[in-house]
């Protein structure tokens, strides 16, 4: 595969969190076939984040699927992916009389 072809199979992304970004500046290159969860795991290690199993990755309004590749998630080149803890539900007990 030529250098040009290899480049065509790459994509640059950044993971954005309240603890910091991965990479800190610019973007990091990954294969389009790389699973999003692999990218997020690398970001978690870099940012020293723990227990991120229930965090949600989002591109604009669209929630991404970590089990799918960057390509299958339809993530464009030079995307900034927002990654944050999720909140499953409120407290029914608050309204109990």
């Amino acid at each position, binding site marked *: 595969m030529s250098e040009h072809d290899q480049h065509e199979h790459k994509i640059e992304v950044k993971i954005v969190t*309240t603890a*910091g970004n991965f990479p800190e500046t610019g973007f990091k290159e990954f294969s389009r076939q790389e699973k999003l969860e692999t990218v997020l795991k690398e970001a978690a290690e870099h940012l020293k984040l723990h*227990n991120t199993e229930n965090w949600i990755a989002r591109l604009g*309004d669209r929630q991404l699927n970590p089990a799918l590749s960057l390509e299958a998630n339809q993530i464009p080149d030079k995307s900034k992916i*927002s990654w944050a803890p999720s*909140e499953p539900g*409120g*407290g029914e007990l*608050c*309204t109990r009389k």
Partner: protein
Amino acid sequence: MSKQLFEEEVGKILRNADLLVERGWLVLVAIYPEFALAVKHRKTGRIRVFRFIFDDWNDLPPKLSFLDGETLLELPGAMWPTNALSHWHQSGWQPANGASTGQPFMCMAGIREYHTHQSHISDSWENYKKQSGFDLGGIVSRVTEVFQKSDV
């Protein structure tokens, strides 16, 4: 210690231009113990101003209220968001003694009104404060993401 931790964690948010743009956050006040930001609801375009009070952070979780963006007075409960998952309550916060109040509140771990609500006294903040996602930025993220799913 509380002020130092507040300033460290707020600094991470203020220095992160990508974060502010991606989340649609406009920080209005970041002076200990107050952190106030305007957030645009992605679906309706409505803007709400969130005010967190981080006094005694992180021995205590923050208090949360909504402000009128023009007057900076607290918003009445009727102007608070609603959703089907019982996060938002437009009135009825109850302190430990069970007294009935008309105070609106957000029912979510990490918010002081939740942990001091009569129904949740047993679910202590101590259970959460060292967990990932319950630092200052994590709590603000949780609240604003629940807001994004609300019917504001």
